[in-house]
C-alpha cells in the first residue's frame, strides 16, 4: 500500500494553519494566564499577546480553507459551514449583540459544534489502522469534549448531569503520557534514510536542549516543582501534582522530538506524517483548555479533517 511515495502534498493552507496555531498556542493560550510569573512588565507582554489575537483571527480565515480543500472527507461541507458560522458568525454577532453567546440558539449551536468535533475525532479513529497511533490523544480530546458538554448541560440547559471531572484528572495525564509514547513510535517506525537521520538529530538536539535543563531544575527542587506546577495548571491547563513535573518535562521532550521527526518525514516526501504532527499538536493544545472560544473546536475539526483527507489520499494511491 505504501510502496510508492503518495502524490498528496502538504498544502499551503495547512502549513499556514499549523504555524498560526503554534503562534496562538504560545502567545495567547499559554502566555496570557502566566503573565504574573513573567519577569517582564505587563505592557510588553500585552503586546506579545496581540500576536495571539492576530493568529486566532487569521486562523478563522485559513481553517475553513483547509476543510474546503479536504475533498475526500465525509461531512466536509457540514464542517466547512460550521467553521464559518461559529467563527465569523461569532465575530459578527460580537458587534451587533455582545450577549449573543448566552442566547439559546448560540448555546445549541455551541453544543452542536462540540458534537461535530467529537464526530471528527471518531472519524479519525476509524479512518485507518495507522491513526490508532493517535488513540491516546483522541481519547484525551473526547474527555475534554465530554466535560464541555456536561458544563453546558448543567449550567445552560439546566439538566442535572453526573460530572466525572474530579475522576478525569489522572486519566487525562495518563493519556497525555501514553500519547507521547505512541507518537514517538509512529515517528520512528520507518526505514532509516540519511535525510531522516538529520531530522532525527535536529529533533533530538532541540528536545534535549529544552527538556534536559528543565528536568535538572525540577528533579530535586520542590520550589521549582511548585512554580512549574502552577505554570502547567495556568498556562497549559494540565492539572498535575508538582511531583509529576519532572516526568511531564520528559514527556514534553518526547513530544518535541516526535513532532520534529514527523515534520522531517513530511519534508522528505511523506506529507501524511506532517498531518499527523499537525493533528497531535492541536489535540494536545486544545484538550486542556477551557473551551471559551469557538476557535478551539474549529481547529480540532480542521486538524482531524486534514489528517483524514491525507490518510484517504494515501490509501487510494
Amino acid at each position, binding site marked *: 500500500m505504501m510502496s510508492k511515495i503518495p502524490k498528496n502534498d502538504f498544502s499551503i493552507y495547512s502549513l499556514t494553519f499549523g504555524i498560526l496555531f503554534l503562534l496562538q498556542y504560545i502567545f495567547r493560550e499559554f502566555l496570557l*494566564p502566566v503573565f504574573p510569573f513573567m519577569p517582564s512588565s505587563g505592557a510588553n507582554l500585552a503586546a506579545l499577546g496581540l500576536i495571539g489575537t492576530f493568529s486566532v483571527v487569521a486562523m478563522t480565515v485559513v481553517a475553513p480553507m483547509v476543510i474546503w480543500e479536504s475533498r475526500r472527507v465525509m461531512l466536509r461541507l457540514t464542517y466547512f459551514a460550521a467553521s464559518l458560522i461559529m467563527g465569523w458568525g461569532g465575530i459578527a454577532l460580537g458587534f451587533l449583540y455582545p450577549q449573543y453567546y448566552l442566547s439559546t440558539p448560540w448555546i445549541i449551536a455551541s453544543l452542536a459544534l462540540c458534537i461535530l468535533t467529537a464526530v471528527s475525532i*471518531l472519524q479519525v479513529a476509524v479512518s485507518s489502522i495507522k491513526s490508532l497511533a493517535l488513540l491516546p490523544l483522541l481519547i484525551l480530546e473526547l474527555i475534554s469534549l465530554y466535560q464541555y458538554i456536561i458544563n453546558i448541560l448543567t449550567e445552560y440547559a439546566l439538566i442535572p448531569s453526573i460530572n466525572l471531572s474530579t475522576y478525569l484528572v489522572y486519566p487525562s495525564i495518563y493519556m497525555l503520557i501514553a500519547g507521547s509514547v505512541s507518537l514517538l513510535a509512529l515517528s520512528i517506525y520507518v526505514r532509516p534514510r540519511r535525510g531522516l537521520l538529520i531530522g532525527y538529530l535536529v529533533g533530538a538536539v532541540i528536545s534535549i536542549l529544552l527538556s534536559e535543563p528543565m528536568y535538572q531544575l525540577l528533579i530535586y527542587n520542590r520550589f521549582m516543582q511548585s512554580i512549574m506546577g502552577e505554570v502547567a495548571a495556568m498556562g497549559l491547563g494540565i492539572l498535575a501534582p508538582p511531583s509529576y513535573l519532572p516526568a511531564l518535562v520528559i514527556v514534553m521532550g518526547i513530544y518535541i522530538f516526535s513532532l520534529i521527526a514527523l515534520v522531517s518525514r513530511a519534508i522528505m516526501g511523506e506529507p501524511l506524517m506532517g498531518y499527523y504532527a499537525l493533528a497531535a499538536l492541536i489535540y494536545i493544545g486544545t484538550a486542556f483548555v477551557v473551551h471559551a472560544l469557538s476557535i478551539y473546536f474549529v481547529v480540532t475539526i480542521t486538524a482531524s479533517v486534514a489528517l483524514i483527507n491525507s490518510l484517504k489520499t494515501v490509501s487510494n494511491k
Partner: protein
Amino acid sequence: MHMVGKSIRPALIILSAAVLLGLLAVLHSVPLAQTPSGLVAYKVIGSANLANPGSESFWSNIPWFNVTLSPTLSGVPTSGLVPYVEAKAAYNGDYIFILVKWPDNNPSTIGANAVAGPGHWVMVYNPKGSLNMTFLKLLTSTFHKHYKIINSSYAIIFGSPRPMEYVLYYYGPANGVYFYGYYTNATHYYPDRFAIMWYMGTQQNPSDCMNIGGPHPGYKVSGQLGQVVGTIPNTGGSLSSGAANIWEWIAGVTYPQGSDFSYFTNATWDADNGINPTDASQFASAPHGFFLNLLTNQSGLFDIGDGGIWYPNATGPVPGYFSGYTGAKYENGYWVLEFVRQLKSPMPDTVNITVGSTYDIAFGVWYGKSGETSFDKSITANFVPLTLVPKQPTPPSAIPTIVLTVAVIGIIIALVAIGIAFFSINKRRK
C-alpha cells in the same frame, strides 16, 4: 507545493485576507467568537432562607455543578483533602446567592473559643527516615519557636510564623524536615472554612494561587538560616497579579451555632476591634451568619472593615462589615453553605457585581479537623468563569430522566453505527 501554478492566485488572496483581518483585529480589538462556558447565575424571584440554605424553591430549578479541587501544597499529606465542591448561583435583582456543598465526614462544627482559632501548631516529619535535628533546631531558633519531638521521624513546632512556613515548605525537604500539616487531636483542631475569591484585576485568567511568603515583601531571614534563604520575595497570602476580594466563612466564628460567634454579637468588642459601632450595635441586636471580606493584592492579604483581627486592615471601620450573609447547615455528610450579598459593592475594596458580566471566581476549602488551616487547603487550580444572565431558569423538566438516558444511549449507538459504516465503506473502496 501543488498550489504553485493555476491555483496560486486564490491562495494568495486568501492568505492576504487572513493577514489583513488578523492585523485589523489587533488594531481594533475585535471580539473573538465565544462559546458559553463556566458557572451561570440565573435571575430568580424570592429571597434567601439562611436558616435552611438550599431549601428555597428557586434552587430546585438549577442543578449542581461539580468543581474539582487541587492541593495548594504539593507533597504535603494534609493538603488538598477536599476533592470537590458542588455549586450553583442565582440573583434576585438586589442580591446574589451562591450555594455550595462539599463532603466532610468529620466536620469541625464549632471553633476553639478564640476568634483566631487555636494556636497553629506545625507538624513536621521525614518520610525517608529520621528528622534532621540540626535543621529543626536552626529553623525553630531562628523564629523563636519551641518544638516537641514525638518520635525520631515526627515533631511538633508550636507556632507558624509566615517566613517559617516559607522556609519549611521550600527548604525543608532538602534538609530532612518536611511539612506534614497542622497538628490536631481531639481538642486541638481548626475550624472548617470556605472562601470564594472574586478576581478584580484586569488580566485575563490570572493565577488564583496565593503566594507563600513573609510578613511583607522583601523580608530578610536573620542569622545562619538567612545566609541560606536570604530574602523572601512576596508576602504570604499575596496575589501574583491584580487584586481580589475574598468572602470567607469560618465555622464557629461567622456561624451562629459556633461558640466564637458571640465575640461578634458583643458591640463593645466589635468597636474595640475597629468595626463600625453603628453596624456593631445593629448586628448585636439581630445577629445572623455572615462572611468576612478580605482583600488580596500584590503587596499582601488584608482585612476589610475591621481594625485588623486576622490580617492587617485595608480600610479600618467602614459601614457594611456585616453586609454579607451566610447560611450554613451540616447534613448527610455534607456542609451546605449559602453566601448572600447585595450586588452593589458594600465596602471599599469589595467586588461590585453587575448583571450580564462574567467574573473569575475561585473556591478554597479547609478541613479543620484533618489539619488544614492557613495556607494548607484545597483550591480550584484555575479561576471558574461565573456569568450573571438576565434570564430565569426554566429547566426542561418535561424530559424525564429515563427518556434522557435512552436518548444518550441512542446517540452513542448511532455514533458507533456511523463509525462502523465509515469503516466498511472505506474497506469496500480499497
